[in-house]
C-alpha cells in the first residue's frame, strides 16, 4: 500500500516535471543582475532581454541584487532551484572569487546560456598629464618613482588585472593606486585631476576621449579598435603582451547547473537570437564592446580560458589569497 502511494506520487511528480519542461516557460522568469542599476552589466542585460522575451514567449523580470562584488546575487541564484526560472546576469568577476577569497562558488556551478560580449581595456591619462603616450608614461614613472597616481577598483577589478599585466610585461612599476568604487567615479576623478592614469573599459572612456577630456595611451588588443583607430595597441608597444591578449571583461547569462536541458536549450536559442538583433549590436558597438554571442561548449571554453589566464596572472602578481591550483584552475599553456 505504502509503495503504491509512493509510486503514484513519484509518477505524478514525474509527469509534473515532464509537463513543466515541455511548457517552459510556463511562468515568469527572474533575471538577477549582479551589478547596480545604470552600470554596464545592467544596461547590457536590459537591452538584450526584451528581444529574448519575444523569442521565448515569456517574461523575464529583472532585478538588481548588488553587494560583495556580485557574490550576493551569485549565491542567491546558486541557492535556488535549478528549474530555469532564475537567470544569473553577471560579469567576469565570479571567475576570480575563489582565488581572491571572495566566495566558494563561481560560474563552474552554473551552465552558461550566453556570453554576450567582451570589453576592451584601455589606458587613459588626464588631459594635463605630462606625457602623451604609453612609452612616455613608462619613462615618467622611471624618472618620478612613486609619484604617478593610478586609479583602481579593488583587487580583482579590471584595473588590477591590467596593472598586473603591465607589471608582468614591463617589470614592476612604482606608482600609487588610489581606490574608487568603479571605473565611472574613477574616470570622473581623472577629469578632475585627482588621479593621473586609469585602466578602464573602452566604453566608459570613449566619450571623454572624443571630447578631449582625457588622453588615450594604449588599447589592450591585438589589432587597433574601430572606434579609436589611431590609438596604438599594447601588442605594438611590447610583444610581451601576446601571452595575455585578447583579454577583457565580459557579460554573460547563466542558469544553475542541473537545469533541465529543454529549458537551457530554449533560453540559449532565445538569447542567441536576441544577441544578433541589429539594435543590440549597434548598442554594443557604440559602447566599444566586442560582440561574442557564445553559447554551449564554446562559451565554456571561453570561460575556462579566461579564468586560467586571469587567475594565474593575479597569482604571479601576488594579488591572490589562494593559489588557482587549489581549485583545479589549469595554468595557461605557454
Amino acid at each position, binding site marked *: 500500500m505504502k509503495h503504491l502511494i509512493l509510486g503514484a506520487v513519484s509518477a505524478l511528480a514525474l509527469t509534473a516535471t515532464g509537463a513543466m519542461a515541455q511548457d517552459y516557460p510556463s511562468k515568469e522568469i527572474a533575471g538577477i543582475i549582479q551589478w547596480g542599476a545604470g552600470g554596464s552589466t545592467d544596461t547590457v542585460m536590459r537591452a538584450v532581454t526584451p528581444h529574448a522575451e519575444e523569442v521565448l514567449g515569456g517574461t523575464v523580470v529583472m532585478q538588481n541584487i548588488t553587494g560583495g*562584488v556580485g557574490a550576493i546575487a551569485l549565491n542567491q541564484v546558486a541557492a535556488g532551484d535549478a528549474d530555469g526560472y532564475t537567470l544569473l546576469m553577471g560579469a567576469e568577476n565570479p571567475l576570480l572569487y575563489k582565488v581572491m577569497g571572495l566566495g566558494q562558488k563561481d560560474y563552474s556551478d552554473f551552465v552558461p546560456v550566453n556570453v554576450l560580449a567582451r570589453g576592451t581595456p584601455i589606458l587613459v591619462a588626464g588631459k594635463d598629464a605630462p606625457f602623451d603616450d604609453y612609452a612616455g608614461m613608462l619613462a615618467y614613472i622611471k624618472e618620478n618613482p612613486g609619484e604617478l597616481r593610478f586609479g583602481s577598483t579593488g583587487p580583482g577589478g579590471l584595473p588590477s588585472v591590467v596593472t598586473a599585466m603591465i607589471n608582468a610585461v614591463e617589470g614592476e612599476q612604482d606608482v600609487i593606486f588610489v581606490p574608487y568604487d568603479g571605473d565611472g567615479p574613477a574616470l570622473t576623478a581623472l577629469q578632475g585631476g585627482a588621479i593621473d592614469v586609469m585602466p578602464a573599459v573602452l566604453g566608459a572612456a570613449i566619450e571623454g576621449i572624443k571630447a578631449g577630456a582625457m588622453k588615450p595611451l594604449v588599447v589592450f588588443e591585438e589589432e587597433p579598435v574601430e572606434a579609436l583607430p589611431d590609438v596604438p595597441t599594447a601588442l605594438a608597444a611590447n610583444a610581451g603582451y601576446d601571452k595575455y591578449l585578447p583579454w577583457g571583461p565580459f557579460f554573460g547569462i547563466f542558469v544553475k547547473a542541473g537545469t533541465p536541458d529543454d529549458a537551457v536549450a530554449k533560453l540559449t536559442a532565445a538569447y542567441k537570437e536576441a544577441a544578433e538583433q541589429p539594435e543590440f549590436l549597434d*548598442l554594443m558597438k557604440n559602447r566599444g564592446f566586442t560582440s561574442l554571442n557564445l553559447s554551449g561548449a564554446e562559451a565554456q571554453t571561453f570561460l575556462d580560458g579566461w579564468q586560467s589566464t586571469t587567475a594565474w596572472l593575479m597569482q604571479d602578481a601576488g594579488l591572490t589569497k589562494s593559489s588557482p591550483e587549489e581549485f583545479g584552475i589549469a595554468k595557461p599553456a605557454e
Partner: protein
Amino acid sequence: MDALSAFFTVFTDLKLLSLVALGTFAGVYIGAIPGLSVTMAVSILISFTFSWDVHPAIALMIGIFMGGVYGGSRTAILLNIPGAPSAIATAMDGYPMAQRGEAGTAIGITTVMSFFGGFIGIIVLALAAPSVSQFALTFQPRDYMLLAILGILLVGSLSGESLVKGIFSGAFGILIGMVGMDPLTFTGRFTYDLPLMQSGISFIAVMIGMFGVSEALAQLHHLDTPAIKQKITRIVPSFGTIKKYLPLSLQTSTIGVIIGALPGTGGDIAALMAYDHAKRVTRKPSRPFGKGAIEGLVAPETANNAAVGGAFIPMMTLGIPGDAVTAIMIGALFIHGLNPGPMLMVEQPDMFWFIVGSLVVANFFMLIFGLTGIKLFTKVVEMPRAVLIPMIMLLSIVGAYATNNSITDVYWMLAFGVLGYFMRSYGYPLGPVILGVILSRLLDDNWRRAIISEREDLGRFFHGIVTSPLSLILFLAVIFIFFSQTPLWTRLKARLLPARNEEAR
C-alpha cells in the same frame, strides 16, 4: 531657435505632456512610501520603456524623479516617517506641525517651496551647466572629505536637547555605515564572518526601522488619546508668507544645486545641510526649530528639489551622474542610442533642452498634484491608531524588502526599529544616526583616497589643503562651525555683541 523649439517639445505634444503628468503623479506616491524609491522606479522603467522612443521614455522618468523627490515629504509630515532619505530633515519640523493640526499648512508650504527650489535648480541647469560642472570637477578627495566633516558637524543641529547624546548617535551611525566589505580593499569589517553582515547594513533598512517601526511602537503609548483634528482651511500659503522666506529659500536652493551637482552627493545630504544652514542664519524662527518652525520645512524642501536640477548638470555636460537616479538615466540614454558624455551638449543640444523643458513641466505638475488631494491625505493622520499602526508596520516591511528584495533587510529593519524605540525613549536623537550612516562612506573613502594620493604623508596632505583655495575655504568653514558650537564661542559672542544677543532673546 532650435533650442527653443526643443525646449517647447513637451509643452506642445499632448502625449509627452500626459506622460510627464503621469510620471509626476506616480512619483509623488512612490516617493511617499518608504522603501519604494525613485531609483527603483526608474530602473524598472528602463526595461518597460525599452521599445519606446527616447523622448517619451525620458519624459516619464523625469516626471517620476521630480514627483518622487517631493513625495518623500508627505509621509515625513503626516507620520514622521520620511518616504525617502532626502525628507529626513522635513520630518523634524513637519511632524510637529501635523501634531498641532497644521498638516495642511505644512504640506502647502512644502509644495510651494519644493516648486521654488525645483525652479532654481532648473534655471541653474539651463543657464550655467558647463561652469557649474567644471566647478564640481575641481572637488578633490580631500574636499569631499572636508565636506563630509562639515556634514558630521550638523550633529549639533540635529541633536535637540543633549549634544552628547547626539554625538553618540552620530558615531553609532558612522559605525553602522562601516559594517560590511570595505569597498576599497574588499576586506570584511565588523562582519564577524557572518554572511548576513558581509554586504553591509542597508541604509534604507536602518532609516525605515528607525523612523517607521520606532514611530509605530511609540504610538502604542497613545492608543487612547484621540487623533488630532486637522485644520485644512488654508493650504496655499499667502504671497506674504512666500516673500518672507524668499531670502532663505534662495540660499538653501543654492546649497541644493551645488551639492546635487557634485558627483557622489545628492538630495539627502543637501537637505540636511540646508536645514542646518537655516538653523544657523534664522535669528527669529516662527517657532523654535524642532517644534514646528516653517523655516525647518522651507530649507530642506527647497534644497532637495533644487538638487534635482543640480544632478542633471554633470550628467548633461560630462556624462557623469550627479546621483543614483541620473546614473540610471545615463544608462537609459545609452539604450536609446544616444551617447551621454561631454559631446552630448555639442552633438545633440536638442536633448539637453528637451530635458530642461520636461523638468519645467514636471515641476508645474508637482505643484498641481501637491496642492490637490491634501484633504484625503490628511485623513491619514486622523485615522484611528488601531488602523494606522498596523499600516505603518506593513509599509515598513514592504519598503524594507522591496529595496533589495532581501529578507535580511527586513530583519535589520525590525531590529533597528526596536533599537530606535528605546533610543527615542531615552532621549537619543535618531537624525544623527542616519546622518552618520549617510556620511560614513563619503568620509571614510575620501580620507583614504586623499591620504593615499599624498603617499600617506600628513605634511603633504596639509600642504595640499593650504595651497588649494577650495580646500582652504572648506577647511576654514569646518574650523569655524566646530568652534561656533563650543561654549567658548557663546561667551565670546556675548561679550562682543551684547546688543544683538539681547534682541535675539
